[in-house]
């Protein structure tokens, strides 16, 4: 029995007696083996997930002070950065973390593509991963507008213009995602709802699927 298992026993012996958690922890954590040939590059996906957890945690902290109102959004972010203890750090971790998460998702996908790990029986891993790439970029894009700065305003303007290239429906899609003809308080409210509830919710669902499939097929062994 190793240290972690001992600690678990000491901390929750009574609970463990009833729920029998030790085998679960051993199977998934302390006695879980990965292929010896797996290099450090196999960590990108896990690191992206770690940053996702950090984003959720710092996001909840920022929500305590952020106001999704065009009149007050910028002021509330400034308040977080200058008046809340360590607020500048939490805000910076959240915004820099978004960049890191996108970089790690791309590195993860580049490795999987280069080593051709997406082949049978792992096609659905790649497809669900592509959905996660989409939700991650959408999370970053919607979050970018929330501080309501010049940069985020014009970023949202340029970004929401992209669907106008779609034939016939393009202009209408732009109106729909802007919630009106221009970027306004309604756009901010819509992006906020997407950023806080919808996109993280979809991400978590697809992630659970992604991870369960990996447990089922196992990690691909490099040749």
């Amino acid at each position: 029995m190793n240290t972690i298992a001992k600690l678990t026993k000491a901390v929750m012996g009574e609970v463990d007696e009833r729920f029998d958690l030790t085998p679960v922890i051993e199977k998934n954590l302390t006695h879980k083996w990965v292929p010896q040939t797996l290099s450090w590059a196999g960590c990108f996906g896990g690191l992206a997930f770690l940053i996702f957890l950090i984003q959720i945690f710092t996001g909840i902290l920022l929500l305590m002070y952020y106001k999704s109102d065009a009149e007050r959004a910028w002021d509330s972010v400034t308040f977080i950065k200058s008046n809340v203890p360590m607020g500048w750090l939490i805000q910076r971790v959240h915004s820099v973390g978004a960049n890191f998460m996108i970089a790690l998702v791309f590195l993860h996908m580049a490795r999987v593509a280069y080593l051709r790990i997406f082949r049978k029986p792992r096609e659905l891993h790649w497809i669900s991963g592509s959905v996660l790439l989409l939700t991650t970029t959408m999370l970053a894009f919607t979050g970018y507008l929330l501080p309501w700065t010049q940069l985020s305003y014009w970023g949202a303007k340029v970004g929401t213009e992209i669907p106008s290239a779609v034939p016939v429906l393009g202009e209408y899609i732009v109106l729909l995602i802007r919630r009106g003809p221009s970027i306004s308080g309604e756009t901010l409210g819509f992006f906020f709802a997407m950023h806080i509830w919808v996109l993280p919710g979809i991400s978590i669902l697809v992630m659970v699927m992604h991870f369960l499939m990996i447990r089922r097929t196992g990690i691909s062994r490099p040749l």
Partner: protein
Amino acid sequence: MENCQCSHGGAAFGGAREKAAGRELAQPSRRGFFHVCIAAMTGIAGLAVAFPILSFLRLPKRINAAKSIEVPLAGLSESQALFFEREGTQIVVINTNKEPKAYDAACTHLGCLVSWDQNEHVFRCPCHGAVFDDQGAAVKGPVNMPLKKVKFEINKGVLVIT
């Protein structure tokens, strides 16, 4: 070093076996040493994460701290009452019988905020029906203590609460 097999992490330095063998100094095992190092580094990393998070939960600095309340008495009629918030307490100012008064608007029963009845010139508590007259004395309801008076000064016809 002898063939030490205490490779488990339980006893960090040395082991009970070595002490039982009558050694003066317990021989630290390599693995035990690394266990301590890893635990220490994990602890330091944990503190580095916990510190900003716990700091974030502290109260933020407010720029607009308590300012003094100023009420020009000429503009305050007999039937009127003005409410102000100051450092978490609600203060009510009235001017009945040409005599300005300021009270802590929290009912002395359970702390609900009293409202001013401008027809009968009494304070009424919405929670349990306590009634206070314009002198702050309890008239009716489940309470005997009068409303708490708030100190003020009158400076050239302006009531000032500092």
